[in-house]
């Protein structure tokens, strides 16, 4: 790996401030790791192989079947991957990307600009673009001056970090396989698909023509789907699997104390108490603001997530550029402050309790932390009921905005701050919960200011501070804590675990001691 970087790694433009050693996350012993069959327990059935539908249901395969244009280190520094260099125009309205030579898709087709163009095409298509579509909204057009170069033009000047996020999010799909990518993987990744047994798992094997040298280390990669945490833990303890990916914090904590290795990546989620500010008492700003102080964040973190994470009052993980620890102190759990704000709201007791809290019954942590909030509300004289729904019923209520208040996690909390707008409660337009026109124009303006802050560090910082202030004032979403997603619990026989910025599972560096 180090050799690769020395020979091919060229720093492009101003994008890379420092060339971080690529194998930074690899221990020194990595070279001595042995191959074999790596058995991984996952907790969700694979939904599809489409990297543009990236979600927890395919987190475990995407980085093993595909490579993205660039990668981030766990600290958020960009690194070359399929793109060897990238140059952002000084006016920040375009980026030019150089593609790596000598890479082939699993089918044998050489990797060239056509596949990147096809990938961009798919991402910009409202029907096929899926998760990438909203990120593509800044893109005007694109072109390929030659086989090894792609140029992407933007509609307006775009902050640097947002451009890098886009490149990191772009995962080239083989042009001719793009229509069947949901069911047939078409990538350049370190592993190729061998077989899949629906509901049980899938088997991959090492890609013999992989462009990163000496990777992957293991010859076979087997994923087994476990429907419950307890089952996966039992399998790890009985030696039936080597790694659990994306298990619960609680069992990870228990396994850690039993001597297993636990790795948590930087890509946390933030649990957010979402408030439908178009309904009932929640139309009252002062009433909403009381909820900033009604969250027993420490208790929620301990009971719901075994203490693995941080209490936060803003939707950012500590790695986020907008993270500001002072808010956590200023908006700590404080029933007296909450009572004062409730009194200031001028609402009657009957008005205050005229709602139900929606709860995801399929998620044990949600049930518990909802009860904690319910108890806090009870203490300030607002007795409310829980409306517990399972599976599909919950999801449709959550997405349709058919709730008064609900806990739901928010991702992308370590990236460019406006990326939180991909999440339904934080959307600035076509918000399915708050609807149009957006009831909190100051928030919409604050996001626009962040997006438009393409100037110096001071302007950027000011825009972040403004956003943070607006978020607690409008109080339509009350973050409580960050928590681990994509936790890796491994037996002591394995080593070489690489952490990924989004906590995707990267198997290519893992081997046996």
């Amino acid at each position, binding site marked *: 790996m180090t050799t690769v970087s020395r020979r091919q790694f060229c720093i492009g433009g101003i994008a890379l401030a420092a060339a971080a050693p690529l194998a930074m996350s690899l221990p020194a012993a990595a070279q001595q790791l042995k191959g074999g069959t790596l058995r991984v327990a996952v907790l969700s059935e694979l939904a599809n192989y489409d990297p543009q539908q990236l979600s927890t249901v395919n987190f475990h395969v995407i980085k093993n079947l595909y490579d993205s244009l660039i990668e981030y280190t766990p600290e958020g520094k960009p690194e070359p991957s399929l793109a060897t260099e990238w140059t952002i125009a000084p006016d920040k309205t375009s980026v030019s990307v150089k593609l790596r030579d000598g890479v082939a898709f699993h089918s044998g087709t050489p990797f060239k600009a056509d596949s990147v163009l096809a990938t961009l095409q798919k991402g910009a298509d409202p029907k096929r673009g899926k998760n990438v579509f909203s990120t593509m909204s800044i893109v005007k057009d694109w072109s390929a001056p030659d086989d090894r170069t792609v140029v992407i033009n933007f509609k307006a000047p775009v902050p640097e970090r947002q451009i890098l996020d886009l490149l990191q999010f772009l995962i080239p799909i083989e042009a001719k396989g793009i229509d069947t990518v949901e069911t047939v993987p078409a990538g350049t990744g370190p592993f190729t698909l061998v077989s899949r047994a629906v509901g049980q798992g899938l088997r991959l094997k090492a890609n013999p023509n992989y462009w990163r040298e000496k990777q992957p280390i293991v010859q076979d990669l087997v994923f087994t789907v476990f429907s419950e945490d307890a089952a996966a833990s039992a399998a790890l303890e009985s030696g039936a699997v080597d790694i659990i990916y994306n298990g619960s914090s609680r069992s990870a904590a228990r396994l850690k104390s039993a001597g297993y290795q636990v790795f948590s990546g930087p890509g946390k989620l933030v649990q957010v108490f979402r408030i439908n500010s178009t309904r009932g008492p929640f139309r009252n700003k002062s009433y909403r603001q009381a909820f900033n102080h009604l969250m027993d964040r420490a208790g929620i973190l301990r009971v719901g997530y075994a203490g693995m994470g941080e209490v936060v009052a803003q939707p950012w993980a500590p790695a986020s550029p907008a993270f500001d620890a002072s808010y956590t102190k200023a908006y700590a759990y404080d029933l007296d402050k909450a009572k004062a704000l409730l009194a200031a709201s001028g609402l009657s007791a009957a008005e205050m309790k005229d709602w139900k809290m929606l709860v995801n019954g399929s998620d044990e942590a949600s049930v518990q932390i909802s*009860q904690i909030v319910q108890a806090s509300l009870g203490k300030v004289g607002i007795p409310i009921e829980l409306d517990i729904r399972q599976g599909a019923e919950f999801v449709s209520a959550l997405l349709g905005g058919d709730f008064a208040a609900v806990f739901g996690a928010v991702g992308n909390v370590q990236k460019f701050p406006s990326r939180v707008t991909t999440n339904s409660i934080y959307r600035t337009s076509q918000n399915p919960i708050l609807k149009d026109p957006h009831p909190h124009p100051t928030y919409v303006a604050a996001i626009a200011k962040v997006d438009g802050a393409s100037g110096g560090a001071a302007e950027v910082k000011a825009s972040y501070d403004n956003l943070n202030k607006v978020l607690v004032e409008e109080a339509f979403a009350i973050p409580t804590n960050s928590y681990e997603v994509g936790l890796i619990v491994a037996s002591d026989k394995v080593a070489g675990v690489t952490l990924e910025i989004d906590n995707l599972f990267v198997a290519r560096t893992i081997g046996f001691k």
Partner: protein
Amino acid sequence: MAARRDAMSAMLGSTLQVLRRLSARRSTSLSFAFLLLVALAAVFADVLPLDPLTQNLADSLMPPSSSAWFGTDELGRDILARVVYGARTSLVTAFGAVVIAALIGVPIGLVAGFFGDWRDSVLMRCIDVLLALPNILFAMALIAVLGRSQAAALVAVGIAGIPNFARIARAQVMALRQLDFVTAVRSFGGGSSYIMFRTILPNALSPLVVQAIVLASIAILLEAALAFLGVGVPPPTPSWGEMLRTGKSYLHEAPTYAVLPGLVLTLTILSFDTIGRALTALLDRHDTGVPERRGR
């Protein structure tokens, strides 16, 4: 009215007699005592110095101690308090479910058995469907429709119990409808429903009451199973099955969390079952539900 009072006192008399016979065995008298305890707990839960809802997050998952005899749960609530209030959930659900099952099942069985024509075929075919479906799956599907609530659990468990009552009522009617006193009522002009409900039903009561007791144990079990699968009475309402569900995830940290509520649940089910079986045995020996043959 006076007659009704007489009937009541006669019934009370025979009930006492049955109770006396039942308590002759140690297993049944123990069962009685335990059920009495559970029922008292359910009724007087509010009077006891127990609080099932107040959380104390700092003291979560504590082992049994003098301040919390059964320990505390993951939110620091007193498990004993939740077990006591859970008795209320269980008994209310069981009682309501048995009432629903009886109100629907008994008329179905009476009509099917009394007329014995196409009505019998149609009704019994429906009962067959209910019998063939595992009641836990049926109840889950029904709760999915009704939304998760105590009422939904009660209705789902009740409907699952319909076949039990329908089959027993039907068998009783078929045995009783040809008897002379039924013919007598028919001959002086009693209509079908009068005969079914006023003449036959009172004579079929004993096996139906026994069935109700047996069904109560099934209903408590089913309610707990639904809660265990996460579709029962919604939290924070205390429910034994829900406690087992949550407790199961804390087996390593707090083994008593799942074990103690489960023990109370099991003893309750066993007590109902023991009494139900003792009554069945008594019924087989002393009272078959048809009039005595004395004098012949």
